[in-house]
C-alpha cells in the first residue's frame, strides 16, 4: 500500500476588517509556485486561475459521542473529503472562518474525524488581528478572545495606524491570553507566506520546540471570564496513574473552559518525554524520544482558558508527583 500523504490545512481566523481578505488575496495572487485550495465563507470574489476556491457554510455539528463540548465543522468534513477525491493535488488547503467564529470546532474536526485525520493535518491556526481595534473587540466579543487563544500565529496587522505605546499594550494583551502564539507585526498583511504556512504547529514536535512567552504580571485581568493562561512545572517525576486520573477528570469536568492545553511530562520509570496537546476535551499525546542529556527533566504543563484559577490546577498537578 502507498503511504497516504497528509495535506496541511491552515485555518485563518480574525474579526471582520482585520485584514483576512487582504491576506487571502495575497495567497491567491502571488507567484509562489504552489497550489492552494481555499475554503471561504464570506469571500464573494471570483476565483483566480490555478487556485481553487470552495464556498462553504460554516456548519457546527455536535458529535453524537457524549462529549459535551465536542463540536466539529460538518461542512469541512464534507469539503475536505471532496477535495481528496480530486486527481490534481494541492500543496495546502486554507480554511477561512467567519469573523465571529470560534476556532474550536475547526480544530476538533481534525481530532475527531478519522477520514480528515488520515488525509489531512491541521498545520496551524493563524489569527489576523487589527492593532487598532483588537483591544475593544477583546472586551466585547468572547470570540475575539478565543481566536487569540487558539492562535499559533497572531498576525498583528495595521501597526502603521497605532503609536508604539499602544502597540506594546496590544501585544501585552495578546500575551496575557496566549503566551505560546508567535506575534508577527505587519502592515497590509505584508509578511512572507512561509511565516504563516507550513508550520506544523499542531505536531507534538512543535510542543517541544516552542517556548512560551509569559508576562511576569498576568493576574491583572479585568473580568472573571477573560481568557488567560497558566503554566506549571515540576522537577519531581510524575506518577502516570495519578496524572491520568487527575487530568482525565479535569478535561471531563472543565473541558469547556480549557481552550488549549499542552504538556511535556516526565513520568517516573519512563526514559522518554511524554508530549501532549489538547483542544477542550480532546487530546493527542505520545512519547517523543528520550530527554536530552544536558537538559533537566522538568515536567511542564500549560493551560489557556477561562476560570483557570478556580480549577485547583496547581494543587492537582502537585498531587501527581510520584511519592
Amino acid at each position, binding site marked *: 500500500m*502507498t503511504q497516504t*500523504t497528509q495535506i496541511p490545512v491552515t485555518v485563518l481566523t480574525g474579526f471582520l476588517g482585520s485584514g483576512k481578505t487582504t491576506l487571502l488575496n495575497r495567497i491567491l495572487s502571488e507567484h509562489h509556485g504552489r497550489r492552494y485550495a481555499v475554503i471561504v465563507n464570506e469571500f464573494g470574489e471570483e476565483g483566480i486561475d490555478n487556485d481553487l476556491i470552495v464556498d462553504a*457554510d460554516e456548519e457546527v455539528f455536535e458529535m*453524537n459521542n457524549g462529549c459535551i463540548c465536542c463540536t466539529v465543522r*460538518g461542512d469541512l*468534513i464534507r469539503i475536505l473529503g*471532496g*477535495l481528496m477525491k*480530486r486527481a*490534481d493535488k494541492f500543496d495546502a488547503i486554507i480554511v477561512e472562518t467567519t469573523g465571529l467564529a470560534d476556532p474550536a470546532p475547526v480544530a476538533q474536526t481534525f481530532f475527531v474525524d478519522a477520514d480528515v485525520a488520515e488525509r489531512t493535518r491541521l498545520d496551524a491556526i493563524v489569527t489576523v488581528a487589527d492593532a487598532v481595534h483588537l483591544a475593544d473587540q477583546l472586551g466585547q466579543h468572547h470570540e475575539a478572545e478565543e481566536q487569540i487563544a487558539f492562535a499559533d500565529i497572531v498576525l498583528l496587522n495595521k501597526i502603521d495606524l497605532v503609536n508604539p505605546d499602544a502597540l506594546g499594550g496590544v501585544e501585552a494583551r495578546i500575551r496575557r491570553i496566549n503566551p505560546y502564539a508567535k506575534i508577527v507585526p505587519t502592515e497590509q498583511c505584508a509578511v512572507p507566506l512561509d511565516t504563516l504556512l507550513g508550520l506544523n504547529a499542531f505536531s507534538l514536535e512543535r510542543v517541544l520546540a516552542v517556548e512560551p512567552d509569559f508576562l511576569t504580571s498576568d493576574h491583572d485581568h479585568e473580568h472573571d471570564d477573560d481568557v488567560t493562561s497558566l503554566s506549571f512545572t515540576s522537577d519531581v517525576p510524575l506518577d502516570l496513574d495519578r496524572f491520568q486520573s487527575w487530568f482525565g477528570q479535569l478535561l471531563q469536568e472543565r473541558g469547556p473552559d480549557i481552550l488549549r492545553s499542552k504538556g511535556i511530562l516526565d513520568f517516573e520509570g519512563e526514559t522518554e518525554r511524554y508530549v501532549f496537546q489538547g483542544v477542550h476535551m480532546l487530546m493527542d499525546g505520545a512519547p517523543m524520544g528520550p530527554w536530552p542529556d544536558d537538559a533537566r527533566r522538568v515536567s511542564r504543563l500549560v493551560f489557556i482558558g477561562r476560570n483557570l484559577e478556580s480549577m485547583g490546577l496547581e494543587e492537582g498537578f502537585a498531587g501527581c508527583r510520584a511519592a
Partner: protein
Amino acid sequence: MSGGLIAGAADGVSETPLERRGLKLETGAPVTGAVAVGDAVATGFGDGTVRFFRREAPPLAIAAHRGAVLCLAADRDTGSVLTGGDDGRFLRLSPDGAIEELASFGTRWVDCVAAGPGWRACSSGRNAHVWRVGAAAATQLEHPSTVGGLGFDVKGRRLAVGHYGGVTVWKWHKRRWKPTRLNWKGSHGAVTFSPDGQFLVSSMQENALHGWRLRDNADMRMSGYPAKVKSFAWIGSAPFLATSGAETAVCWPFDGREGPMGRAPVTCGYGGQQLCTAVAGVIGVDGVFAGYQDGTVLAGMLIDDAGVDKVLKNAGAAEVTAIAVTRDGWLFVGDAVGAVLWVALGG
C-alpha cells in the same frame, strides 16, 4: 500522487485468474464511484471523467466535469447516469457519450444525485432540487443543513434527504412534495429505502448506520462499526443491506415485518486486518462482493457455505473505492489511485 506510475499488482505472479483475464487500466485519477446501468457500469473519476464499461466494447471515456465527479446515480428510465461535480454541474450522460447539463450551481458543489421512476434530483448546499423527467423547472426543497444524501424509494413516491439532526422524507402528495422529519441526533449522510419501501437507513458521521421502520417510525440502531460506513448495497433474497466499515462485509437482514430489529447481521468476506471499504451485489443473489483497504476484493456467500470466501482480486496499490456488478455478471472494481478491473465473472 501520480497514480499512473503505480504498477500495483501487475507483476502477473500475484494476480488472480479473474485479474489475468480482465481488462485492467491505470487511469491515474481516483475512482470516486460506480453504478450499474443496464448491462454497463458507469464510473466517476477524480479528474472529472466518466467512463462507461461495456460488455463487448472498449470503455467509453467522457470528459464530463472540470473537477472531481463527486456522485453518480443510475437513471434507469433512460439507461443513462446522473452525475454531480465540484464544478457545480448536474449532468446526465448516456452510454453513447451524449452529455446533457440538467443544472449548474456555479461555485457550489453538487454533492448528491438520485434518480427514481419519473424523477431526478440533486443537492447543492442545503437545497435538494427535484425534476419530473422531461420538465425544465425544478422544485427546490430546503433543509436545515447541507444535504448529506438523497434517495428515492423504488416507486418514486418518496425522496429521503439526509442532513444534520435526521432525515427528511418528502412524499409526493396532491402534486406537491410534503415533508416528514425523522429526527436522530448526529449528522446523516447517504440514505436508502429498503426495496419494499418499509425501512429507511442512513449512514452517519459516527461509525454507525441509523434505520427507521417507516410504518411507526421506530428507530433502529445499527452500530458497532470500527470505521464509517461509506458504502452499502441491497443484495440477496431477503434482501440484505450489505455494508462496509468493518473487517467483514456486514449484511443486515430486511425480511419480515421487523427487518433487522433484534437480529444480528450476517458477516462474510473476512478481510483480516483490513477494513472493508466498498461492497456490491445484486438483489436475489445471496453473495456479496467486498473490497478492502489494501485493494483486495473477496466474494462471500450469505447462506449455506458462509465463511468460505473467494479471492477475486489480490492486494493492489490503494484501497478499493468502488465496486459495481451488472445483473448479467460483469464486475467493476476501482481504487483510490485509479486502477480499474473490468471482468466477466462467469466461467
